[in-house]
């Protein structure tokens, strides 16, 4: 079976500015695929290229094996949920949902049936006759979704559709979107700058930076095994340390840190003894303790930040290195240590990962 979307060596230039540098990636059928990156990384440009709103400077675009590079947007069986919904203000909810179906010249009976089905799905059947401006943001969002799904596109594009919603609604919509994708079996391509959103919903994520693909992997892999320093930094919280490689063993690097500390880091890859590398540690893999523990390192707490379910500790090792640790709160919510107190830091085995810059 061919890939749902194949982006082959796509280049996009605006004058002398290159928005996308030879991007190649495959999106599998029935996949929830996310394009993730900071603003200006080219993710929206790539989405607009798939939709057909932007020409490409070079490369090829295939949809289920067919070359669609030269097709205008209205000839591509792809629909979009726009960031600001872009519902037609002069039409009712039902007319908005029916819009694509009418242009496809479907029989009226079929249109009526499918619009009813779509409104049922988004639980807005009772609002069929309303105009978009009479709906709340969340309702407009769902109408935009129904409008885009009604023609049963082969691929659905979603351009930061949750960014205009408030936090609670956004979290609820994440679940809804994920469920919807599984129910409909349509390939979703989702654009976001919100890494939490990406991790929560995606089957696979492509992380983009400055017009280049940094990594394409499942959320867990992206989080635990970031391919580049950019990915490690962009997704979640991270400590970065510079270390010298002393020896290699089973794909692990034995590293020396300033202050005489030693650390074994996984994913040594192409690192060589004597080389300087970056080490990356997730804060939740470092734990603070008020008494001596096995492999504990003496330290002083500098700052604590209460986060509700957890507390962030900024600690200074006796050797001068500063690290951030995140620990689950105790039952009574009191911090394990307060600022200025001395204690011990334990680094979980395999917490450190080698990163080549």
């Amino acid at each position: 079976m061919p890939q749902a979307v194949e982006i082959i060596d796509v280049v996009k230039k605006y004058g002398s500015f290159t928005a996308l540098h030879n991007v190649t990636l495959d999106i599998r059928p029935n996949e929830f695929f996310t394009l993730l990156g900071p603003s200006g990384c080219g993710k929206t440009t790539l989405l607009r290229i798939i939709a057909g709103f932007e020409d490409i400077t070079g490369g090829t675009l295939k949809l289920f094996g067919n070359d669609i590079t030269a097709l205008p947007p209205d000839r591509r069986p792809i629909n979009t949920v726009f960031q600001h919904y872009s519902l037609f203000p002069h039409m009712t909810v039902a007319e908005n949902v029916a819009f694509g179906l009418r242009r496809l010249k479907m029989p009226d009976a079929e249109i009526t049936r499918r619009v009813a089905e779509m409104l049922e799905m988004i639980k807005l059947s009772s609002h069929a006759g309303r105009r978009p401006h009479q709906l709340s943001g969340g309702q407009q969002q769902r109408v935009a979704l129904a409008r885009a799904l009604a023609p049963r596109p082969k691929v659905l594009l979603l351009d930061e559709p949750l960014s205009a919603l408030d936090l609670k609604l956004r979290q609820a919509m994440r679940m809804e979107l994920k469920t919807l994708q599984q129910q409909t079996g349509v390939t979703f391509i989702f654009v976001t700058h919100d890494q939490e959103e990406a991790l929560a919903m995606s089957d696979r994520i492509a992380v983009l930076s400055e017009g280049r693909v940094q990594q394409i992997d499942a959320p867990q892999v992206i989080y635990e095994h970031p391919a580049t320093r950019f990915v490690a930094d962009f997704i979640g919280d991270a400590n970065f340390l510079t270390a010298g490689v002393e020896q290699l063993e089973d794909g692990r690097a034995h590293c020396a840190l300033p202050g005489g500390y030693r650390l074994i880091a996984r994913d040594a890859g192409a690192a060589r003894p004597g080389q300087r590398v970056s080490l990356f540690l997730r804060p939740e893999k470092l734990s603070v303790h008020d008494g001596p523990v096995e492999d504990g390192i003496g330290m002083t707490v500098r700052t604590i930040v209460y986060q509700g379910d957890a507390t962030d500790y900024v600690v200074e090792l006796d050797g001068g290195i500063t690290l951030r640790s995140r620990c689950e709160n105790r039952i009574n919510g009191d911090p394990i240590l307060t600022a200025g107190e001395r204690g011990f830091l334990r680094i979980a085995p395999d917490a450190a990962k080698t990163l080549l810059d």
Partner: protein
Amino acid sequence: MTPHRATLLGIAPTLLIIGVLMVVPMIIMAAYSLMEASSFGGVLPHFSAEAYIKLLFDRDLDDSLAFDPSYMIILWRSLRIAGLATLITLCVGFPVAYFIATRPPEQRTLLIFLITIPFWTNLLIRTYSWVLILRDTGLINTVLQAGGLTDQPVKLLYTEGAILFGLVYTYAPFMVLPLYTSLEKLDFRLVEAARDLYCGPWGALRHVVLPLVKPGLVAGSILVFVPCLGAFVAPDLLGGGKELMISTLIQLQFTSSRNWPFGAALALVLLALVMLTLTVSAVRQARATAEGGH
């Protein structure tokens, strides 16, 4: 001073202007239309419906009335030419307004400014320039003949086409400006949404752009249709006064024909047509608003 009196004082200038400069002259005109014509211009103070009878009937020597459609033909021609001119202006003005509305904001101001430049020259002079360009020995015919494209000059001036051309030329800015105002407010992302949902460029125009800029479309059409209906300069200079339009007919009543009551009656008919156009559009606008549209 009571608030009520203050309000009254505030609107007094408006009332004065509307009253003295509009209502009173219209009453005089209505009164004149119902009087008897004096042979040397002006009116005789006797009641007479003759002016209105003359609109439809011809009085034979034996005083019997015979239906005479000639004035109705002139009226119909005026309506037809004004309608056509509005349609052409719309077709010409829409792309211009669309182009300006899709430029970067700093360019738009300049382009709109350029649209208003023709108003800096007197309409009579501008129209007369077209006479020089369109006449048998004018610029176009000279070029056509020099280029060997025709032996005889092509008749351009003193045709209905010339009138239409003059009207479109004169009133195009009145179409462009309101259309631009509507288009400028249009969210062009909706055009993308339409393209995404299987509309070609024309489909997006028809199903999304035109319905959303309808207020500008209506305003522009009224602003062009109404003055075209009563236009005098273009029909008179470019039409040569052979294919009469209502404005020239009215002018003739006050000059060579010396039939003031008939002229006044004609002017009132023109006014009634304009009022009708405005009322119809206002009612439709109100109905659209009541339906919950924008």
